[in-house]
């Protein structure tokens, strides 16, 4: 395999990382039955806060490690707080979760721009490149997966932890039940709304982490308009595309990142003459196409083209019913 292709694939993995982390976070939240629609704002806000916190701490003379850690924590806290407002509005105050989430999308983006106005386009600390010894020497896989930084490695761990937590742990049973049939969870002594608060905040913290992955690593620094604007919506769509299953969600994130890489490759290829502007359409067209696929029987119609035995198997793999109690309220009498 030639080096350029390896480079591109490696950059796909790197660039997909915030999408992976954010969409896994939202997967956890939605599995518990809460829709946090504010992603597009909270990623931006936490990216800004993460950068500003890390920058300010490093300016005060602290070591770069400390400042980065504090930056990441600040970002996660911001994401968790925004998510908690959605949960409080939706659960305790009985508001429409979509409404609260939407308002927060705009508010968080506005806040980021306002509070970050004095920190635009300045260099700050970034998370260091850290290839993993031994693993990074594996041919092909090494350069693609193991010559990155801690955010990327964390995302690998997160994929498996999320899967294990959801489908193999005892608490995962409660988490899924709360999103699927809260009455059944209540009957087994689970405090439904407490679970929802916890997992919404946890999912929000991961969204915040995704923000930090942008501003401290992939697109270092802060700028207006923010470079990651729009990715929150993509992450929300990826959760649907991924059928609320961590592995498929991650696949979706890598798919989107590959597409972006593809469009940069096309731009650099002189033989193909497409307006570079129009290439920006691709992620959005893909977003609609994938949503059409998973809803409205698009998948079903495609499946019918396959031979029968394979049909059934594929259908099981592609099953993607949303959590049955998604976006609903539960109140024990």
């Amino acid at each position, binding site marked *: 395999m030639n080096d350029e292709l390896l480079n591109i694939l490696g950059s796909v993995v790197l660039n997909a990382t915030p999408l992976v982390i954010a969409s896994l976070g939202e997967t956890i939240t939605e599995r518990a039955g809460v829709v946090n629609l504010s992603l597009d704002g909270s990623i931006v806000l936490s990216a800004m806060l993460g950068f500003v916190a890390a920058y300010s701490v490093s300016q005060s003379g602290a070591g770069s490690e400390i400042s980065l850690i504090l930056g990441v924590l600040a970002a996660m806290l911001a994401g968790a707080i925004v998510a908690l407002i959605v949960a409080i509005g939706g659960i305790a105050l009985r508001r429409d979760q979509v409404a609260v989430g939407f308002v927060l999308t705009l508010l968080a983006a506005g806040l980021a721009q306002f509070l970050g106005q004095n920190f635009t386009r300045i260099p700050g600390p970034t998370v260091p490149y850290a290839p993993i010894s031994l693993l990074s020497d594996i041919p092909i896989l090494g350069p693609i997966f193991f010559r990155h930084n801690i955010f990327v490695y964390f995302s690998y761990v997160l994929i498996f932890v999320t899967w294990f937590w959801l489908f193999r742990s005892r608490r995962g049973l409660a988490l899924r039940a709360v999103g699927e049939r809260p009455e059944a969870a209540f*009957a*087994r002594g689970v405090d439904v709304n407490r679970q929802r608060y916890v997992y919404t905040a946890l999912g929000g913290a991961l969204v915040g982490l995704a923000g930090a992955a942008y501003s401290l690593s992939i697109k270092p620094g802060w700028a207006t308009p923010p470079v990651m604007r729009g990715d929150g919506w993509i992450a929300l769509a990826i959760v649907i595309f991924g059928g609320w299953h961590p592995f498929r969600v991650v696949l979706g994130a890598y798919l989107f990142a590959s597409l972006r890489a593809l469009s940069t490759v096309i731009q650099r290829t002189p033989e193909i003459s497409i307006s570079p502007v129009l290439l920006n359409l691709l992620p959005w067209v893909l977003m609609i196409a994938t949503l059409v696929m998973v809803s409205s029987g698009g998948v079903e119609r495609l499946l019918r083209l396959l031979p029968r035995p394979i049909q059934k198997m594929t259908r099981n793999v592609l099953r993607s019913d949303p959590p049955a109690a998604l976006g609903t309220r539960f109140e024990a009498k």
Partner: protein
Amino acid sequence: MDIELRNIHKWFGSIHANNDITVTLKGGRIIGVLGENGAGKSTLMKILSGFQPADSGEISIDGKPAVYHGPQAAIANGIGMLQQDPLDVPAFSVLENFLFGLSLNRKEARKRLVEISQRFGFDLDPDTPVANLTIAQRQQQEIVRLLALGVKTLILDEPTTGISAEQKQLLFDTLQSLARQHGMTVLLVSHKLEDVIALCDEVIVLRAGKLVGDRQMPATTQQLVRLMFGQEFAPPTRERVPLGEPVLRLDGVLLRDKRLTIDTCTFQVRAGEVVGLAGLDGSGQELLIRACVGLVKPNRGSIVLAGQDMTGKPYRHYLQCGIAFGAAGRLEEGLIAGLTLTEHVALANETDPLIDCDAAREHTANQLALYNVRGRAEDPIEQLSGGNQQRLLMALMPEEPLAMVLEQPTRGLDVDSASWIWQQLLARRASGTAIVFSSADLDELVAYSDRILVFYAGQVYEIDDASTVTIDDLGHLIGGEFEGSGAGRRLA
């Protein structure tokens, strides 16, 4: 385990659902809890099993006062309830559902699940998704789970609705064995007297929130009816109506949804005829009903309404051609929470692009009086009781439709409301309307149908003359025992 309830009160708004109930429930017995819909029996059982707190009153177990909050705590006190719609998680496998809330690891849980299932002859595969189970299997799975949690008193809420005769027998055998061999208390909430007579050692009877009777069995149906209603009812009489021309005809229809296929079904309904659709939940009767009104398009075959080919036409076209449809879930499908009664009537009847508010209100007031709906024209619909909502739905339907297609028209209604609905339906039938209805209540099917179609996993069996079939026969038929039944023939 003996349970004593003392002076239990529960209010819902202005309704006194449980009014000063004091009763002792002895261990090792099967006790029937009788009463019509709305008598307060479910409320009392929910209080006992921790799903609702009582407003006042005491519960003591084996002579010691017991105070607990929540179903989990009730189970810790040995009391577990099997809800009418069992509280399982459809997205789980049987094993996961069993494991959830139990302190066992996966391997132990699997062993335990298989062991208890086998003891009672339950057919539960640990790896099947709960969503694929029948209602009877879901009940079995819930019983197994409650037993594994160490429950000593088992409450069952209307467990015989929607299950076949065979499944019912297995359930009754299980309950007998739990009471006789394991010394458990079984509380059977039911409004079906034959079940109570077949199974119970004792009955307690509630009426309008009060305990009105507590007697040892055996007792006759008449005695129990008198306890439940304070009076006796004459069995419904059905007048023969001369049948007219065919109104609705399905010709070689193939229907398919995610779960099942109804292959090549041909049947017709004539003016003035009542056709009942029997079957366990999800056996295909829902699919056929929705095909009859154009909500589901047949994959093959044709649908003809009064001589006009309707195949593939949209639902609204069926409405305009004289079909009236009533779905099972009133507030999910049929009525619109947040709209007033007037708005409903205007929506269903007016066609002018401009709405004359005064005329609409007046028309609504007339309809409400005519259909005996207790409610004001400007009230939002969700404030009406179930019976009033059903009556309003009736008022929204056209006066003399060609055919009425109704899903479970009396589900969840008390006896009065249900018989009122049937009076209305039979009156419209007398003027030539054809009626197709489904029901989970076998008595209702036998009492009102001229003809019955039985559904089992997409197969259809026709009973030509409903007066020749007994409830017991029907119970076997809905369990799929078509072979050897002499009552009718296979349709699809």
